[in-house]
């Protein structure tokens, strides 16, 4: 299965995301921000980093890149899309996901291994996890504080669309400890922590992150 990983100017974690796809058993395909062509991929990852230097707002300029127009169209038809960190910010700016990511409440960049609880194990990207599984993956962000209108938050909670929640301490002040959410259909998932950095024991705190990448492969087969 071909999984596209988009590189924007300023993307940092595109190579790690490609590597995670390969370790999970998929075929990573590099996608370029300036190219509308999705090259026949069956899923897309928007990786972490600082696209367009985080100018204006994180993800605000990337959202209008030619590749994003194609991704927004296809996401509406069910294409699985995973946004990690800056990718999550881009998905919110694109209105594929509700809410926004703002400056961490304590103003510090937070970089640590983070305990998370997988609260929705039925999305395209989390099917490999047991419901309420606790996993450890790195978190590293300066603008990861998730906010949304109270009505929107109640809707997300009511529809089971909080995919992962911070456990063992909230690293950035996100409302209701929300670390990641999905759209109504469950094909678009965004999260601030970095599962692609937890796929090998040599370099990560665990291999818990691999589940995000195997999930989409399993979803495609079934």
């Amino acid at each position, binding site marked *: 299965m071909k999984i596209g990983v988009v590189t924007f100017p300023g993307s940092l974690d595109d190579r790690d995301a490609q590597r995670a796809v390969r370790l999970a058993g998929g075929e990573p395909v590099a996608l370029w921000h300036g190219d509308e062509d999705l090259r026949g991929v069956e899923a897309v990852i928007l990786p972490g980093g600082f696209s367009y230097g985080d100018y*204006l707002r994180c993800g*605000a300029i990337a959202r*209008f890149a030619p590749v994003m127009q194609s991704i927004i169209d296809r996401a509406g038809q069910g294409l699985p899309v995973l946004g990690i960190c800056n990718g999550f910010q881009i998905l919110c*700016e694109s209105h594929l996901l509700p*809410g926004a990511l*703002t*400056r961490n409440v304590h103003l510090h960049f937070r970089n640590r291994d983070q305990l998370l609880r997988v609260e929705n194990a039925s999305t395209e990207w989390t099917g490999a996890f047991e419901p309420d599984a606790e996993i450890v993956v790195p978190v590293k962000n300066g603008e990861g504080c998730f*906010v949304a*209108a109270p009505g929107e938050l109640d809707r997300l909670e009511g529809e089971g669309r909080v995919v992962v929640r911070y456990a063992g301490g909230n690293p950035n*002040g996100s409302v209701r400890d929300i670390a990641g959410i999905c759209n109504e259909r469950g094909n678009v998932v965004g999260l601030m922590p970095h599962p692609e950095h937890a796929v090998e024991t040599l370099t990560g705190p665990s291999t818990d992150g691999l589940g995000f990448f195997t999930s989409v492969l399993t979803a495609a087969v079934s």
Partner: protein
Amino acid sequence: MPRVLVDVMLKPEILDPQGSAILGALSRLGFTGVHSIRQGKHFELEVSDPVDEARLRELADTLLANSVIEEFTLRVLPR
């Protein structure tokens, strides 16, 4: 060439940790009497004549501000 000023501020209900940090610094420096600071963004545009204000508002709403967390004011400067 007409000039347009756009100010973007976080909505009142959105926490502004940067403003809070500036407020804290002011009190440490001995500047008293300031009770609140909100930090925002200021844009200055030079645009073609005649000014299409509706189109400028669309521009601000599309890119300069994120309506989920921000609101903007737009002023066309008199020539």
